[in-house]
């Protein structure tokens, strides 16, 4: 009996490894697990004060309901990739606000005309200082801000469809 258990031990270890790796892969797909990412320091913290042409912190707070804030730029190819996903979120009535990061205004406008505009409000972070304050490591990057103006979730890189679906259900329910 003991011997049997001993012989099953390698299978047990392999199974534990397999299940956890599956959990990691799922997490990577949904954006909840990133083995390389720098953790965002904004998580569970109130938004830093900012005032950009377009909207400012007070506007976000006035809104009094959870919103998604997306950093993007017209020069960023992955943002093109992300555009249809953002449009889908918009169709699901997810409040989506955009901040154009280090971009020329006309280029941003052309980008939004070409790809479709998913944003309810648009601000311009020309100098990139707000991006630095928020601790973004690149564009696109998305923040979920709750009604009290506290960052609840963050994703670096283009939103994967799975993460977008999860967000959409979270907002509608």
């Amino acid at each position, binding site marked *: 009996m003991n*011997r*049997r258990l001993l*012989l*099953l031990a*390698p*299978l047990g270890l*392999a*199974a534990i*490894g*397999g299940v*956890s*790796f*599956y*959990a*990691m*892969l*799922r*997490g*990577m*797909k949904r954006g909840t*697990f990133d*083995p*390389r990412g720098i*953790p965002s320091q904004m998580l569970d913290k109130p938004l830093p004060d900012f005032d950009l042409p377009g909207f400012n912190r007070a506007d976000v707070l006035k809104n009094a309901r959870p919103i998604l804030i997306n950093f993007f730029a017209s020069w960023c190819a992955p943002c093109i990739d992300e555009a249809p996903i953002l449009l889908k979120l918009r169709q699901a009535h997810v409040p989506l606000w955009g901040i154009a990061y280090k971009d020329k205004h006309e280029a941003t406008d052309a980008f939004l005309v070409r790809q479709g505009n998913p944003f309810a409000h648009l601000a311009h972070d020309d100098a990139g200082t707000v991006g630095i304050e928020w601790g973004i490591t690149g564009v696109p990057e998305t923040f979920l801000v709750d009604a009290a103006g506290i960052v609840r979730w963050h994703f670096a890189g283009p939103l994967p469809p799975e993460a977008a679906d999860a967000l959409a259900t979270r907002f509608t329910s």
Partner: protein
Amino acid sequence: MIAELGHFGLALAVAFAIAQGILPLWGAHRGEARLMQVAPALALGQMIALGISFGCLVWASVADDFSVLNIAENSHTLKPLLYKITGAWGSHEGSILFWCLILAICGGLVALFGGPLPASLRARVIGVLGLTACGFELFALLESNPFARLWPPPLDGRDMNPLLQDPGLAFHPPILYFGYVGMAVPFAFAVAALLEGRIDAAWGRWVRPWTLAAWCALTGGIALGSWWAYYELGWGGFWFWDPVENASLLPWLTATALLHSAIVVEKREALKTWTVLLAIGAFAFSLSGTFLVRSGILNSVHSFANDPARGVFILGLLAIIIGGSLLLFALRAPKLGASGLFAPVSREGAIVLNNILLCSIAAVVVTGTIYPLFADLLLDTKISVGPPFFEATVLPLACPIFFAMALGPFMSWKRAALAPALMKLWWVALVALIVGIVAKMGMHAVPAFAMGGAAWMILGAFADIIERIRLFRVSPANSFHRLIGLPLSSFGTTLGHAGLGITVAGIAGMSLASETIVLLHPGEHAQVAGYDVKLVELHDAKGSNYNARVATLEITRDGRPVVTLAPERRSFTTQTMTTTEAKIHTNLLRDLYMVLGEEREGGAVLRLHHNPLAPWIWLGALVMALGGGCSLADRRLRIAAPTRAAAAKAATNKAARA
């Protein structure tokens, strides 16, 4: 058209693999000789089909067929021909196809050289290889098709990551893959033995050469990878305990353990269950290492497309292969029967010790490699496990191995005594002690101790030969005669053990490495470890697909010229990426290693390294692989003998019938 032919070859190989996985296994189960006999033909068919397929990929790459997506992404018209060829296995898709090809070659080799095996064992081994190959070929065909087309074809490709455009790395993957995939053969033997429900000495004899061949390739591959990291990454380090490096170290550790425990199965019919588990484990580590790198869970310079969806497919495949074989192991291992008896102090005992320690090291490395992932997943904390952890844990576990390595060959089978073995090694111990004390004068305690240990290992390995030929105890002519008469495998043992000693000496020597970072203007001098380095000038140069900034350094020692080195910084035009090309001068006792950094204030920032004994690290690995080759040559003679006898017998039978 060529791409479609390659695609067709891949599909054909899948069909062969499915047949190869089902028919022989079914035949062996039912005892039908005819079904078992088709196995070699199917394995060869699969090998040829995949060979054609891979040939097509190489052709498409050389011919710059950018309508093939894989080529457009990883090649460029300006890329040198060598890298166009090696680029065929440089991309994710190509490397999976290459992986399948090697697996098919392993199957083909078993089919070609497996003649003397019992029919049912051969059928089962080939069948298991077929099933494994089938999984990976399906993956290549369905999830990562290397022949997918791109329309409209671009005018030029995106080019390969410049870090990978390097001769060291061009040949590193194929050798490493031979090591990884070669482990599939011992694995197939283990699964076949579990299916048969029996293991004997002959099984051990057949498994050993395959393990040895894969181990040699793995040793060479790891050494080449470490050498590449040494000169291409420009940090002057050679082993970073990077997760990807660890992923290649794990199969090596388990394969080394397997190599030794298979001897016990062969000579003494003991440790059977354990050896089977090791064979499964070595292949499992090979596979999971690849999986972890490909899925993007671990970060690496080889960051292939990190696609979690692909990761799920590979994970499923691994679950079937590893989980299935371990389940079979749990169910069938009790059938393998009890093993021979031996005393704790004996050759078997020494090998058991080696196995326990190697597996403990493997366990520690696994823990250190995946712990950060688990901490992130379960505890939600970001931590990293760096070299200090591995040094603190691996070193204490490796020391007893180093000590026992010289003693082991002096032990007799079944029952031995420690004292006589130690007596025979007294002079080795003395020399090692002296080396250690001398080293202590210039080094810290740990490297000095390692120096002594290296001397103990190298001399201890040769002491075995000296003992066998009774040098100085019989006449030199007699000794020479004995030397000629020694089996090649004992040279294999000696070289293998001495090689590790050389590597350890190299690593210990690197602790004396000195490094200076200086800002030099043309005409200025700097000193490193007694060498005088003069920056002569800085100029621009142009390569086939990059522009370079080159610094000319004149190195002298005590006024005598040593060498002129020209480290570069290259910027690759298509990938907008810069690489540092370190330049190295070696005299086999030390490396002078020069790196050009950024330029400021009209001068250049230079990093100057002096690395004593650095070349020994890779020299040792080469000697180890050579030792493996020696043993392999010996085995072949012994295995070929029954083959020839069997062939002769078959010929006479045929003649008699005719």
